[in-house]
């Protein structure tokens, strides 16, 4: 048990080898890591060596990302994406991740029929189920049909499958200007992942603005101009009973050229801000108090 439990970094935030990233996170005090498929396949020793690195780091995988553009397709496009999804699920299972992140489709070949989308996601969830994996469906703020978490939630409800839930990403919520009151209508047991990040612009009106900012200039919670809204989001989630993980989904070109320890330290400050200032969580008890009393 430590102060940072419940918060984790994403491998996408830092440059360098997988081992270096894992080690920097661990040194900063984190106990979990959100894995990106690319980290595994680009490992010089291949996927098995990457899996070994994750396991020997002792960090718990928060989840595995990211399956894109899965839902709403038909014919050979659907069959192709099902194959891709199966390969992603196999990697996800190999790392011991229990959550696969699936982002809403941006494809103009995909249907906008929400029932069709729900049916496809249920299929994905069924594929994941025997592997013990949950699917977190997240609305990208530039998604073609699903671009707000409220629509993602609608689809998840339509699919009605226990291992299909919603993934929330503060960036997309703020970029799309979705009212935070809608969080109160979510079922906390169906929120499988919450990704947090902030950014420096007040407005991102176009899809292009959102994409560029999302991919190059996100910052850690508390570092941007949406800190108040982000605190509000986290408190609302806490109030409805969400007790799951928060991972820092921070794509930032600057962080990609800074020493890993520097970036991990910023993440640590952010987690501490959330823990102390936002959630007002009590400090954990010292380790000796957790020892069992002799029988």
């Amino acid at each position, binding site marked *: 048990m430590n102060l940072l439990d419940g918060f984790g970094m994403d491998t996408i935030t830092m440059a360098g080898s997988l081992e270096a990233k894992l080690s920097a996170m661990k040194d900063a005090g984190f106990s979990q890591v959100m894995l990106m498929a690319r980290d595994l396949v680009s490992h010089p020793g291949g996927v098995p060596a990457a899996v070994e690195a994750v396991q020997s780091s002792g960090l718990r995988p928060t989840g595995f990302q990211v399956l894109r553009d899965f839902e709403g397709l038909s014919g050979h496009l659907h069959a192709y994406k099902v194959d891709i999804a199966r390969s992603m699920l196999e990697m996800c299972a190999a790392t011991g991740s229990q959550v696969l992140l699936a982002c809403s489709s941006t494809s103009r070949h995909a249907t906008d029929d929400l029932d069709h989308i729900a049916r496809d996601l249920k299929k994905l969830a069924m594929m994941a*189920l025997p592997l013990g994996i949950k699917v977190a469906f997240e609305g990208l703020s530039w998604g073609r049909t699903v671009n707000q978490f409220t629509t993602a939630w609608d689809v998840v409800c339509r699919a009605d499958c226990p291992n299909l839930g919603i993934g929330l990403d503060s960036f997309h919520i703020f970029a799309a200007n979705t009212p935070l009151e809608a969080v109160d209508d979510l079922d906390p047991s169906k929120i499988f992942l919450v990704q947090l990040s902030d950014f420096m612009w007040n407005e991102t009106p176009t899809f292009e603005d959102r994409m560029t900012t999302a991919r190059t200039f996100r910052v850690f919670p508390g570092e941007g101009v949406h800190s108040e809204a982000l605190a509000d989001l986290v408190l609302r989630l806490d109030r409805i009973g969400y007790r799951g993980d928060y991972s820092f989904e921070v794509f930032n070109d600057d962080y990609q050229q800074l020493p890993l320890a520097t970036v991990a330290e910023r993440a640590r400050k952010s987690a501490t801000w959330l823990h102390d200032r936002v959630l007002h969580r009590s400090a954990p008890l010292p380790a000796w108090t957790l020892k069992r009393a002799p029988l």
Partner: protein
Amino acid sequence: MTLLSTHRESVPEMPNRLALEGIEFIEYATSRPQALGQVLENMGFRPVARHRSREVTLYRQGGMNLVVNASPDDARVSATADGEAVISAVAFRVRDALQAHTRCMELGAWNVSSQAQAMELHIPAIHGPGASRFYFVDRWQEFSIYDIDFKPIPTVDPHPQAIAGMRYFGVVQYIGAGRSTDWLAYFEHMFDFSLVPDDQRFGILPKGKLMKSPCGQFLWQLIEPDPWMDADESPERLQRIGLGAANVSAAVTALKARGVEFVESTRLHPEDRGALTRSALGSVSFELVHQDP
């Protein structure tokens, strides 16, 4: 709103979209087929045929077919290093195997590629829990699949009678903590199984969640580890077979006479409702359950 509402009593529909019709066979994988064969023979199963190309033996009693797969690949995949036997497959009888397989694949099942050799049957299959598989068999009425892939063992009665009229009653599946709702959804969605209310139980081991096949011919029980079993992270698996018998006491007596031992403790012991055989080879036990003829 229509005047002719048909939903007033909310009579549940019991669809059976695969046209399931019971269990055709259950398969064990093991690297110690002789030892398992002995356990099965004690339980009344008789070896009746051997596979043409692989190290696979068909055992039978009454209407129950049980396959022992010691083919090196399958035994390696399914069985643990010390040779413990595991239930590696359940074959469902369906109206159309290809259709059933196609439907399950469309719903998100994982395909198992066929190992059929020349002139052997290709039995479509999907992955089940853990390392197990579900097969779909449609040729069980007009002729027997075993006539094609198996050679009968000479001088053996191909249709030995079942002890005390035993028949397949169900399968017990061990699942991970908190996984009941997942697996209930899986079996409902894939095979149209339906949940049996918690106050309705059979036999002497009522734990977990119980489902009924849409054909009504067998049950499927899901058992999670108890909350205090922190360390139980063993893989999900098909744990044991349930055998139905009209007269459990008679079955127990007959099986005891053949050397089968039963769990006999104050809490768990043979009674009219059911009985549990002691584990043999570390993992193989059978549960007897009272079932009206």
